[in-house]
């Protein structure tokens, strides 16, 4: 028994047109974790998800899911998986309820109207249950797709940009739904462009760029390790050069020459001495502590990688 639910090794995907969308990827995902895949457009996130869900075949490498080899046990593995695709592919003339019911059937589950109605309620769709799919807005369609994926009680849920086009309020409710699924033991893999989404709900984060995984890390460790704090000092008047007491720290002067950002160390031991000196500075106006977001970490990472 391996402890990881999904174990990917040396996975590559070359499309027919020769494009290498995934390049020798290794990745492990634990049971019950919320795993976020972050990366720019065209990084290969959807390609990876589609391969894991059986929509597309990989060129080389090995994928083990729930201790089964994907290539040899497609049907068994598919029965564990729910997928919310990136694109809003839906019928037009079917009702919301019937279409969700259809998904449940496709996965070989007995009809259960109560379960589906409850699902619709959780996803704020109960008033739409008899609407035709074509009458829904984009955000509603996205939620119908989520309901379809959950209709058959998957153990692993793939969400390819679940919150694209979903407004802030509903996004928060969706996070709630995702949290609750996690509590029930569902493993969730999602891609997102909203860094705050990963920051909010993910346990683990992987950065992917140009078909390569550049970093996989526990989110909290990542935020701690890389997400060191910044001290932002605001001065009353423009400064010509950095004051003595900060010039030895990694500083950045803003364009208006009134703000200085200082990157603090993990332990932030320098903070107190800076603050003491600041108080003596007559030009000093205010200061703020800023936490680095995953987004800025991510941007730095991509920059650094591209330099290499």
């Amino acid at each position, binding site marked *: 028994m391996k402890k990881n639910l999904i174990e990917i090794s040396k996975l590559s995907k070359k499309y027919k047109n020769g494009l290498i969308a995934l390049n020798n990827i290794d990745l492990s995902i634990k049971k019950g974790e919320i795993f976020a895949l972050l990366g720019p457009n065209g990084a290969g996130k959807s390609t990876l998800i589609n391969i894991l869900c059986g*929509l597309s075949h990989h060129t080389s490498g090995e994928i083990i899911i729930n201790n089964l080899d994907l290539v040899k046990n497609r*049907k068994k593995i598919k029965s564990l998986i729910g997928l919310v695709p990136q694109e809003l*592919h839906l019928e037009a003339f079917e009702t919301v309820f019937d279409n969700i019911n259809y998904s449940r059937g496709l*996965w*070989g589950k007995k009809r259960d109207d109560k379960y589906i109605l409850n699902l619709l309620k959780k996803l704020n769709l109960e008033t739409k249950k008899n609407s035709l799919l074509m009458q829904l807005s984009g955000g509603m369609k996205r939620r119908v797709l989520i309901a379809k994926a959950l209709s058959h009680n998957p153990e692993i849920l793939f969400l390819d940009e679940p919150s694209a086009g979903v407004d802030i309020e509903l996004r928060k409710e969706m996070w709630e739904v995702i949290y609750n699924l996690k509590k029930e033991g569902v493993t969730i893999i999602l891609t997102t462009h909203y860094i705050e989404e990963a920051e909010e709900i993910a346990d683990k984060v992987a950065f992917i760029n140009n078909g390569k995984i550049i970093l996989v890390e526990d989110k909290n460790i990542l935020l701690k390790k890389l997400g060191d704090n910044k001290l932002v000092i605001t001065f009353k008047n423009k400064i010509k050069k950095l004051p003595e007491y900060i010039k030895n720290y990694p500083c950045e002067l803003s364009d208006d020459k009134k703000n200085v950002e200082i990157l603090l160390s993990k332990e932030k031991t320098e903070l107190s001495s800076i603050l003491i000196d600041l108080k003596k500075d007559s030009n000093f106006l205010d200061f703020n502590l800023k936490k680095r977001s995953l987004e800025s970490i991510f941007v730095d990472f991509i920059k650094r990688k591209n330099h290499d």
Partner: protein
Amino acid sequence: MINLLAIKAIYNHEMNRTKRTILQSIISPMLSTSLYFVIFGSAIGSRIKEIDGVTYGMFIVPGLLMLNLLTQSVSNGSFSTYFPKFNGTIFELQAAPISGVEMIIGFVGATATKSILLGLLIIVTASFFIDLNILHPLLMVFFLLMTAITFSLFGFVIGLWADNFEKLSLIPLIIITPLVFLGGSFYSINMLPEIWQKISLLNPVLYLVSGFKYSFYEISDVSIWTSIITILLILFILIVITLLIFKKGYNLRN
């Protein structure tokens, strides 16, 4: 383990689509059948002498049935498998734990059901115009079932192969319709010059039409056993082709 519930889900899903267009599904075959009887049965048929001992109106029933069964099975079958590719909902069929065989049973079952209902509807409509007297009803039902299933499967394969709407209508248009018309649907091949009779025998649809004619009136162009073997053979070949296609994973988008 066969995923019976998935087969049922696909079947119901397809049948629901049909229900949504039920009026069109009923009215159009009834109307076209009626027109055939008015024009060929009464207007022109009255000037044509009996063929093989039956009036012309009676004579065209099996051919008319075959024409509708083949074209409708192929076009409905191909549409039902092409459409998910077209609107993108195929992702769900690909992600679901369904085998190729289960998909075939669901889709082809639904299309064939529709064709069989259509066939019955045509027989009922025809009975308003002529005295319909089916000599071998069981044999007739056998041909109805086999033809519906076989050509629904043919449609299914075309739907997998087609990547645009043109290809979808190509096969019914350039293959099925001519073969039905040249297969003795509306005439007996005895009426043709000898050389054309020989050529006609290369047309598989002729054997099917002939089988149908036999089940209705005990008249036929070829022996009934030849007809039975032909339909079984076509079905067998199609099943083999379909399974090969599935094995290659042709149902996948990329």
